[in-house]
């Protein structure tokens, strides 16, 4: 098989595994869990794009996940309440008239569009503000983290508008289906899987384009790019907005799959956990990032079922190990292994430059002079 053919062939194999094998062997509950992991994989894909390819470590991706999730949930709540009625939580929060912000969400089309556009626009706005002023690296990371903290505090504080800590839950009718039935779970799973596949291909295409090359260039030498006549702020803002849109889509899909969106999914810790997933899967590879999203959450469910407190140790240690030993994550380690095997088989080096311990670029931002 030539190298050119290997990519599509493998993609097909994974697609088959996800679309045919998984639904056949998994019961609806596990399939529902897998659908949830795939939602996180979509968000992780976005982080892979922004961080792995673009060098922007975003510790506030939960915000965009939340914006997408709330857009979808607002529609579902209004749909369940029926025309002219208020969603249940507004009733017990003492809200008497539907807030203006909620009005357009009676339309499913608007809600779905908002789930993509609102996170992207929010990211674009923030990106323009901070990237234009060349806030980057660690500063950007910390700012994005503070954004996640501020956003959750605001969400929780606006109980009548957002459901407060409870978030939005209790959906009876998701596009004509009861979300708790096995059939609905199966359908949601397929939707999530197909969306993930499509977004993965889109991201790949993006990285192959000139824009993708430019993004890598910005990551490795932002100031140099400026002297090529590009505005790195624009490049970064676009990539950040795309990554936010992906998080938004992930959030919107998460709502029907899991049946709830709440501030506890968007704060500082869940946002870092998404980044952890990407680091473990392999930040320099889009597939690795998505894989990390699935792996970490799968491990979380599996281990926390057995040892709830052990999971915290495991997560911490896993993370320390990955950063110290394999910065390229699982994907980087596997690539290294594959190249080592390839070298032994052919008896000579691979055509590209070998990068044993995983590349370390993208880390050149210097916080202190």
């Amino acid at each position: 098989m030539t190298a050119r053919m290997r990519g599509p062939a493998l993609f097909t194999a994974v697609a088959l595994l996800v679309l045919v094998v998984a639904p056949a062997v998994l019961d609806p509950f596990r399939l529902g869990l897998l659908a949830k992991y795939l939602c996180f994989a979509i968000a992780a894909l976005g982080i892979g794009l922004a961080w792995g390819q673009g060098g922007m470590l975003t510790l506030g991706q939960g915000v965009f996940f939340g914006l997408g999730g709330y857009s979808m949930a607002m529609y579902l709540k209004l749909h369940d309440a029926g025309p002219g009625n208020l969603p249940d939580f507004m009733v017990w929060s003492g809200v008497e008239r539907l807030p203006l912000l909620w009005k357009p969400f009676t339309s499913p089309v608007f809600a779905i569009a908002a789930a993509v556009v609102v996170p992207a626009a929010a990211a674009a706005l923030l990106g323009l503000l901070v990237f234009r002023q060349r806030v980057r690296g660690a500063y950007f990371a910390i700012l994005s983290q503070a954004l996640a903290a501020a956003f959750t505090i605001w969400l929780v504080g606006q109980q009548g508008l957002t459901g407060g800590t409870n978030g939005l839950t209790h959906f009876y009718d998701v596009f004509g289906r009861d979300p708790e039935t096995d059939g609905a779970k199966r359908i949601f799973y397929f939707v999530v899987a197909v969306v993930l596949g499509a977004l993965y291909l889109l991201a790949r295409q993006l990285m192959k384009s000139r824009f993708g090359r430019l993004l890598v260039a910005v990551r490795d030498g932002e100031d140099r790019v400026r002297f090529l006549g590009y505005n790195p702020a624009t490049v970064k803002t676009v990539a950040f907005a795309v990554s936010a849109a992906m998080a938004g889509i992930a959030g919107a899909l998460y709502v029907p799959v899991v049946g709830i969106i709440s501030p506890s999914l968007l704060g500082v810790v869940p946002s870092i956990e998404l980044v952890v997933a990407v680091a473990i899967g392999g930040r320099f590879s889009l597939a690795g990032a998505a894989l990390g999203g699935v792996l970490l959450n799968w491990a979380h469910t599996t281990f926390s079922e057995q040892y709830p407190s052990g999971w915290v140790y495991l997560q911490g240690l896993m993370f320390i190990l990955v950063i110290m030993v394999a910065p390229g994550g699982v994907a980087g380690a596997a690539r290294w292994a594959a190249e080592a095997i390839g070298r032994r088989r052919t008896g000579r080096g691979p055509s590209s430059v070998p990068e044993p311990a995983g590349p370390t670029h993208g880390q050149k931002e210097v916080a202190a002079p």
Partner: protein
Amino acid sequence: MLRKSLPVLASLAAATLLSLAACGDSESSGGTAAASGNTIKVGVLHSLSGTMAISEVTVKNSELMAIDEINAAGGVLGKKLQPVVEDGASDWPTFAEKAQKLIRKDKVATVFGGWTSASRKAMLPVFERNKALLWYPVQYEGLESSPYIYYTGATTNQQIVPALDYLKEKGKKKIFLVGSDYVFPRTANKEIKAYAKANGMTILGEEYTPLGATEYSTLVNKVMQAKPDAVFNTLNGDSNVAFFKQLKSAGATASSLPVMSVSIAEEEVKGIGVDNVAGQLVAWNYYMTTPGKTNETFVKAFRAKYGADKVTSDPMEAGYNAVKLWAAAVQKAGTTEVEAVKKAAGGISLDLPEGKVTIDGANHHMYKTARIGVIQPDGTIKEVWDSGKPIAPDPYLKSYPWAAGLS
């Protein structure tokens, strides 16, 4: 670069799927119906990790103790109870997910679990849709009555209303409301304001702080400047520690500024520091010092099992009660089948550590005795007032004219 990581993706995706499938298999083969064989599976779902673990682990412990006691006495319907413990991880979606797992994979007969209102709200649709039972052991803000949830903690009229009655009786007319920013305090304060309006009390201020807030100097300043007769405190968890420490250092004492708290039990007093809360008021249905043989046995058993320095508290007792009440309902119904258990549950009355507790068949809440207590310098809570007899639960406050228009 992208292409090369695809093999990993393929192999790992395969591995993940296989292990997922393996889990599925083992569980579906072992996951027999709840009441078959010689055991009955019951779910215990609390946060064992994360911020809520502090409180919820103790409830889990008392629930497991109740299960042990039932098993030691021969079980239910001649079968032993087998607890399946799951971790809600202080995260509401996780509660919903684990509830699903317990119901659909483990096929438990019932679930005991939850602490925060948010976790209950997240689990509610899962239980309603799957027609399974949840026993929820913590006092809450009311305005809810799910056909598939039994509420063994106090509802508003068994905790907040009596607390207000007590303050009114003591002549505390000017009240300042302090709470964490989430559902319980906001709803509770809404009710308190309605009560105050009807009872000639004034609310001087209403302040909320984010969950986990630790900086209270501004809030304390606001309180001090408003000069209220009393503070009604619905803060949650760690925030109480910061609030009481900073309130005390600002010169307020229990006698100059009494604080009525509804989320501080024996367990929390230790963490706040007795120095900082001694003399302050709390409202619950149960204290470790509540008199009665049943409670003495309960406290003794708990300390024997978990350590002589352990304390018991209202939510722990309510969790313990939940198990006992459910077992009684199953015994009466002669089956663990949900609808039959529900039918049997109404009117069941047991002598429990807090006294007599009766299940209200209509709204699934309990008849409970309200108790106001004062925190003692040794960390225990001494009852200073009680309602005399169990109060009928009224989650929607329908029997209170001032509460019309609240829900």
